[in-house]
């Protein structure tokens, strides 16, 4: 347990400070490639095929040099499936040699016993295995046939190598909320840590959101479970919209997009958050003259996000201080206004707002790297839920400044 260490006079709360942005992100997601061996139906980056414009090894190293100068403590690497990049391990080594820790998200396809032993030896690398069902049936319907076994084999290899505390990352859907205890049991079995995150209507997730997002009753189940059993469960702060039920969940109950969080995509584009791959949230590119630093510190979009935001239609709601209007990306990709309720608003305001939206008019993701040859049936598909800024940047802290 880490305490917020400090006499608190003279400064506002940390949340207030964070809203104005930091000199460098706390939690940076970097998707190294759009290539993926899977085609998960809810892939938030619509991954599948590599993009020919992806950053070269040298360009990736230049980004790492910059992150070192900015003192970014660690990056969350995802994709696509990042481990299919031939230079993946070279980049991981380069980052850790330059004091940038790495946590990478994988479907487990390359986590052999040899790789697991190497990973277990490093203090500066953390691994997150994606799993969206506690049983093969539930998992493979979303992530593709065989993906459950691939993930479990990777977990066994890590555990056998003595790698404790790796993360098992689950996107919560209508079909797996009933498996929360089973997910926890799997994590306990491997001496791993469970991490659950919210399904967003981003990327291909927009196509399946209506069918897969939790029902109102399931949201309540999830919230109650987190309060009762969520002590050692990470959430990437992704359920802060549930704070509207009453009690704040641990972590930073604030949308960190462009303030403490951002995404670098495989071609070097910088977006406000991993769930917002759309030109409306594109702040710049690391190939620009000022590099990532310039985009983070001075881009018009990020400067704008760091101004005080208005609650719009939510301002008069009793829960607004708790949920802050919810997730920007969830609103955007369901066609809702950004200054109104979250589509999964626990007070039910999202449902009524959605009723007034023509689904066909909701913005579509700007990019699509999905496999062309493989149809993606709604009931059978795959791809890892690319890391988001899913690791709670404030893991272990109480609500700061409160």
């Amino acid at each position: 347990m880490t305490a917020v260490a400090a006499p608190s006079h003279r400064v506002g709360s940390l949340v207030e400070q964070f809203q104005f942005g930091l000199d460098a992100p706390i939690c940076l997601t970097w998707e190294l490639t759009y290539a993926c061996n899977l085609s998960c139906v809810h892939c938030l980056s619509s991954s599948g095929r590599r993009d020919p414009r992806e950053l070269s090894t040298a360009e990736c190293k230049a980004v790492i040099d910059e992150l070192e100068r900015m003192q970014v403590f660690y990056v969350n690497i995802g994709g696509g499936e990042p481990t299919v990049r031939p230079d993946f391990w070279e980049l991981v080594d380069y980052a850790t040699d330059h004091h940038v820790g790495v946590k990478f998200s994988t479907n487990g396809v390359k986590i052999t016993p040899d790789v697991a032993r190497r990973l277990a030896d490093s203090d500066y690398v953390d691994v997150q295995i994606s799993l969206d069902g506690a049983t093969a049936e539930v998992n493979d319907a979303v992530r593709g046939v065989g993906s459950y076994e691939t993930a479990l084999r990777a977990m066994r290899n890590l555990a056998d190598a003595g790698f404790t505390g790796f993360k098992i990352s689950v996107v919560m859907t209508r079909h797996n909320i009933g498996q929360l205890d089973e997910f926890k049991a799997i994590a306990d079995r491997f001496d791993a840590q469970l991490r659950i995150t919210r399904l967003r209507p981003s990327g291909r997730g927009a196509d399946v959101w209506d069918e897969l997002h939790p029902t109102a009753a399931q949201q309540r189940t999830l919230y109650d479970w987190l309060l009762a059993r969520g002590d050692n469960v990470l959430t990437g702060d992704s359920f802060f919209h549930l704070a509207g039920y009453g009690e704040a969940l641990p972590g930073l109950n604030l949308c960190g997009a462009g303030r403490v969080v951002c995404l670098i995509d495989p071609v070097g584009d910088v977006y406000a958050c991993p769930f917002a791959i759309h030109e409306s949230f594109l702040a710049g590119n690391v190939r620009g003259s000022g590099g990532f630093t310039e985009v983070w510190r001075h881009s018009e979009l990020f400067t704008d996000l760091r101004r005080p935001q208005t609650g719009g239609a939510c301002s008069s709601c009793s829960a607004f201080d708790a949920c802050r209007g919810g997730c920007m990306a969830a609103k955007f990709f369901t066609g809702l206004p950004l200054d109104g309720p979250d589509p999964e608003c626990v007070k039910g305001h999202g449902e009524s707002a959605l009723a007034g939206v023509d689904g066909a008019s909701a913005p579509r993701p700007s990019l699509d790297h999905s496999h062309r040859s493989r149809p993606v049936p709604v009931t059978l598909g795959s791809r890892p839920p690319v890391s988001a800024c899913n690791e709670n940047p404030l893991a272990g802290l109480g609500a700061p400044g409160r």
Partner: protein
Amino acid sequence: MSTDRIGQSLASAFELDHGWRLHPQVSIRPERFGALLYHFGTRRLSFLKNRTLLTVVSSLESERSARTACVAAGVGADEMPAYVSALAGLAASSMICERTAP
């Protein structure tokens, strides 16, 4: 939150007159409000909520004791308990450690 209580009980045990230092696996990043600390071993993040505390923590290694680090940073006697509590919290989460410790 219970951290305040924990802080107080720890503070009584904090060795203010011993030599301290930043844990070798911890990085500090100064920010406008103070600083962020990250421990690569525990993968925990922590905060220093003002610049004076940042000065104290940064000078621990070169100062004879935590007390002299506080005094050199301009911490007055009335403020000292708050700083001791903060340092105790950092010690409890292994962000700082005694210089004699391995």
